[in-house]
């Protein structure tokens, strides 16, 4: 999304810096994209989460050593027909989570297609994570973990099996992404919604202190 007025240093503060990143969720319908976001952002799980039409937007911050990372999350519709809108959401994104359902092989194949598209079309430095969701349904597993692991390594992706239902690895996958994202001041200065914009360093202003989690 947009420029936030470049880098502002925290003036002589004891507080950590806030870096802001745009993150997009992609993947086949009903693999649990919205559920992952809902778990991460609100700590909730709805068994019958409504299908996402177009896209939904949410934010969440998390704490990383002495910095705070804020994710602007675009959660997209999974049906293939909506794929034509996806570039609008992943444009300028610094991170993506491509989600599949471990009980359904087709969704894994679809995830690979998304990874390919991101590698071709998205920002060159985008951090991509692959999430094998619904790990609580391991007894119905159709995609072996090793298979996904190998694929992820070959493509330089972060990989975790997650469960939005039990919360397993949900915060963790966002945290791993946050760790991998670049946090250098000079690169933040570029700003703009163009490609590969690293996180924007924001001053933690008095009005949104509640969103920062890092206290020193």
């Amino acid at each position: 999304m947009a420029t936030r007025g470049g880098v502002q240093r925290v003036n002589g503060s004891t507080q950590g810096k806030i870096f802001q990143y745009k993150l997009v969720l992609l993947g086949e319908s009903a693999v649990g994209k919205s559920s992952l976001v809902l778990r991460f952002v609100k700590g909730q799980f709805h068994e019958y989460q409504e299908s996402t039409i177009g896209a939904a937007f949410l934010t969440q911050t998390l704490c990383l050593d002495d910095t705070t990372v804020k994710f602007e999350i675009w959660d997209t519709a999974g049906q293939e027909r909506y794929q034509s809108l996806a570039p609008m959401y992943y444009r300028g994104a610094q991170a993506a989570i491509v989600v599949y359902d471990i009980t359904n092989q087709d969704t894994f194949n679809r995830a690979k297609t998304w990874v390919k598209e991101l590698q071709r079309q998205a920002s060159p430095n985008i951090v991509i994570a692959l999430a094998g969701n619904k790990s609580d349904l391991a007894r119905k597993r159709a995609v072996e973990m090793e298979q996904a692991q190998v694929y992820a390594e070959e493509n330089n992706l972060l990989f975790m099996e997650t469960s939005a239902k039990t919360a397993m690895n949900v915060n963790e996958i966002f945290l791993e992404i946050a760790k991998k994202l670049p946090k250098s001041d000079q690169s933040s200065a570029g700003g703009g919604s163009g490609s590969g914009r690293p996180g924007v360093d924001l001053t933690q202003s008095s009005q949104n202190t509640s969103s920062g989690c890092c206290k020193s």
Partner: protein
Amino acid sequence: MDEHRIDPDEERRTIVERYTKGREKIRDQIGDWEDPQNLVLFTDRYGFIHDQQLPPRLSKHEAKVRQKEISRTSKWLKMLEQWDKYFPNSEKLRKRVYKGIPNSLRGEVWTRLMEVPQVKKEQEGRYQELLDYGLYNSKDIRQIDLDINRTFRNNDMFRDRFNAKQQELFRILVAYSVYNKEIGYTQGMSQIAALLLMYTSNEEDAFWSLDRLMSGEKYAMHGFFIDGFPKLQRFADHHDKILKKFLPRVYKHFKKFDINATLYTLKWFFQCFLDRVPFSLTLRIWDCFMLDGEMILTCFSYTLLKLHKRSILDKSMEDLISFLQIDLEKDFGYLDDQAIRELQIAINELRKQKMESPAKTNTDAEKPTRPFGMLLQADNVSIMTGTDDRSIAGSINLKNSDSVSLAQTSRTSSEVDQNELENTELDDVEVNDFCKIQRSCSIYDNVDINESIEAAKRLSELTTNSDQRGFFKLQITLS
């Protein structure tokens, strides 16, 4: 991994079976997790379930509204008796629609505003045919099932998995997916169909209502739901134009955050504000939409931003999106009557500038290009491929009732030669190369004849009755 591959046919059969049997018969197969677990303690007048007790008494305002609604109902009943006198152009009808259609008559009035009764009469028997065909042939059954599982589960009507309303919703969407193959099924349609089901008196009415919304000229939602969503861009561009002219600061505010209009208007346009404003207001907007069609999408989008201009300008990007996405649904900040009055003001304002609707498209990109619902249950069918591979002639032995729909269909398809349809004999057909399919066939899709043949083969296993009354020949040229 092959043992894990799901055979699509098998999957389709399993899904269809569950919906066909319904909740009572498959009780033991429905997992606990498939139903919402909270107890139904409090439902509002629309059947939505709330986890908190609703106020024991109606608020003063709400009580007044209900009282008015009751007094209006008798007026509406009289109007319905002499419908032709009022529909489509009477000022009285317009005034009353904008005041709100009484909830108890909403379904009846909506279907009349969409002219469903006529369509239903013309298409008598078609719904069942489409359904029978769709249950065996629809390619969208998996997606439809996934979405029914999450459509209005917070409403009493759709709460229990595979209950009667979910069965109806399934059948409507499956039938529609083979009726309008350019759309098939697109996410977003399940809520529309469910809303129609809440109000229309039966499933067939809801089906033809969905058809009217998609292909009726007044609503033309077809262009929103087909591949590439061409109508979305056109409406979003027009929306931006309106903002630039009437709400320039709001326009700049969105621009500042790089918020493209398609991002936040998509659900407004695709579903006419469902889930984006409180349900009672959604219904009022739908009342107007049923009467005046697509311009309501444009005009209410403008109204909404105009009413909330101040708070919009104060908001950061994330607050702004959550305001439009979530907050306004919980509390619109204006009474329904006020909002609709503002809508009327906005319509007049935009009309003066001829901006109440986007300019019509000069392409056919948003319109249906293929015939609808060609499920011709024929007795003897031959499909011939011409020598030049560009033309395919098919001769179909049809039931008389099908001839009507076949002829109608040709209106939408320039490729089908009307004359050929009307004067044909099986003998006329010159055969170069043909495959003959006994007993039944579906020539639905004029560009994919192989698909039709495949479907016909499957159908022929199921259809045994024969009914030879007329002969028709289809001359189809592949472009």
